């Protein structure tokens, strides 16, 4: 049941990205280009998403189990630190450069766009770099704490 639901929600989310225009980098860059002729559409995407999301998460916060009985994996971190800000600034630079963020990149790859596939491969490489660097940093910190 869990697997069916995960698949179906992934499909629905992909449809949302396609219908909203998020999978079109031209539209994303049209939104990010405040100094040119500005296309405000993506503000409506975010508005619609958050409007519905607010209801969902308000209910979710009160629950101890999901409807399928699993634990609620709500984020616990509240730190507003350098990692969060520098990481997000880095992400935004890549988003503005190509007009793809992770979800739309994956969906456009599914549509057979070769440039989207290249973007996803490079994105996975970037994530792997993070894993290696982060694991080393954590190992170093652990050694430092143990000494």
């Amino acid at each position, binding site marked *: 049941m869990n697997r069916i639901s995960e698949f179906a929600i992934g*499909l629905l989310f992909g449809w949302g990205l396609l219908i909203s225009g998020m999978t079109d980098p031209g*539209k994303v860059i049209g939104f990010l280009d405040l100094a040119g002729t500005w296309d405000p559409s993506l503000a409506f995407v*975010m508005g619609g998403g958050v409007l519905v999301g607010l209801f969902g998460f308000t209910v979710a916060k009160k629950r101890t189990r999901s409807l399928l009985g699993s634990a609620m994996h709500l984020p616990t971190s509240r730190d507003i630190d350098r990692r969060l800000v520098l*990481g997000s600034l880095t992400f935004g630079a890549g988003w503005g450069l190509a007009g793809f963020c992770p979800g739309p990149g994956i969906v456009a790859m599914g549509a057979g766009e070769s440039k989207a596939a290249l973007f996803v491969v490079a994105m996975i490489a970037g994530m792997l770099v993070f894993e290696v660097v982060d694991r080393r940093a954590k190992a170093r910190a652990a050694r430092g704490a143990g000494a």
Partner: protein
Amino acid sequence: MNIDWTHFTPWTALAGGILLGIASAAFILVNGRVLGISGILGGLLVPKRSDASWRVFFLLGMLLAPATLSLLAPGLISAPRIEAGTVAIVVAGLLVGLGTRYGSGCTSGHGVCGLSRLSPRSLVATMAFMASGFATVYVIRHLI
């Protein structure tokens, strides 16, 4: 500020956004998980086998979204306009991969879900990646 009326699509943007909200609400309520794409994909890159299958099924759904939607409602999909060249695409992918993992989220996890949870942390992240996106496009389109 000049509005680009020819490309402005408030209704499909709102409809698509509502679908993203429904999917995000369903994921936390039904499966107990936050719908954040960079986290779902990034979690596959750590060796932890018990945690992999839900991620794979979710991503499989996303990959099949274009084919299924074009069967159901072909008129709803607009052809993507990709201006960036190969080098820019690769650099962008690296930045997005690295940045979303350091910042613990992207447009879905921090943007849609984080703002819906009223998380100050996600609000800061969202403002940071939006500001950086605006600045990057300004540099590319108007300075270079």
